[in-house]
């Protein structure tokens, strides 16, 4: 894996509560780079997160409110965050329910910027 990709993912997974981070090709839903804890189904999360992001983008286009910058889904047992990067790439993170979303968001936005 490219060291640049590895570094940006490490910056995200360093935040307490993060269980995994991935760079995903948005159109294909395939993993480009990953740093995941055991038990996180990377392929499934990547494919479904890309599909979700596509739907949200269509919904926001239909509502004429611009492109999504940040998707945050809060579940009972954890959190899924998607940040679209330029060039169709997605930064995806999975974490515990109580993880510091603000800090993760910041790292993910930085990651999106640095891989473009």
């Amino acid at each position, binding site marked *: 894996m490219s060291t640049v990709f590895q570094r940006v993912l490490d910056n995200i997974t360093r935040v307490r509560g993060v269980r995994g981070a991935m760079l*995903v090709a948005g159109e*294909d*839903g*395939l*993993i480009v780079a990953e740093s995941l804890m055991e038990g996180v189904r990377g*392929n499934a999360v990547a494919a*479904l997160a*890309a*599909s979700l992001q596509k739907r949200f983008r269509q919904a926001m286009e239909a509502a004429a409110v611009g492109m999504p910058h940040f998707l945050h889904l809060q579940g009972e047992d954890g959190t899924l965050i998607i940040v679209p990067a330029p060039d169709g790439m997605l930064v995806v993170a999975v974490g515990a329910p109580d993880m510091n979303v603000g800090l993760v968001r910041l790292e993910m936005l930085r990651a999106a910027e640095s891989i473009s």
Partner: protein
Amino acid sequence: MTETRAVEAWTLEPLERFVAESGARLTLLMTPAGQVLAQHGFMRAVDVMSAAALGAAIVASTGEIARMLDQHEFAALNHQGVQHGIFLGAFDTPRGGLLALVVYGPDSSAGLVQLFFEELARGLVAATPAEEQPKAVLAANFEEELDRSLASLFGR
């Protein structure tokens, strides 16, 4: 309305679930020899057969290349087009190997198809019935009907 049809009834439920989840436009389940077990989305049976023949040929060719390279067969192939992608995957069932050919559009993705293909393969393995004893199919005097069918086919 696009239709899902199965030659082998046990394949229908896993296939319908796959189509719904993956957003596939067209799906064919077939044997490695290109015989169709089930399909979704094709309008004409003869088009299904052509697609199956070509899909089986691609898998057979790459399998042969893998053999020449002394490698395991490729489990899946993905051809990405501008509008549509084609996914071809192979898997084993208790009744032998099967292939899936999936055509997907911009509302799906290679990742999504790959993800639900794995579920489809698991579903089909679980649904596979025990091998049936071959039984007589045609009436003993089928020749007359065959003669008539072939004569009408050739306009004789």
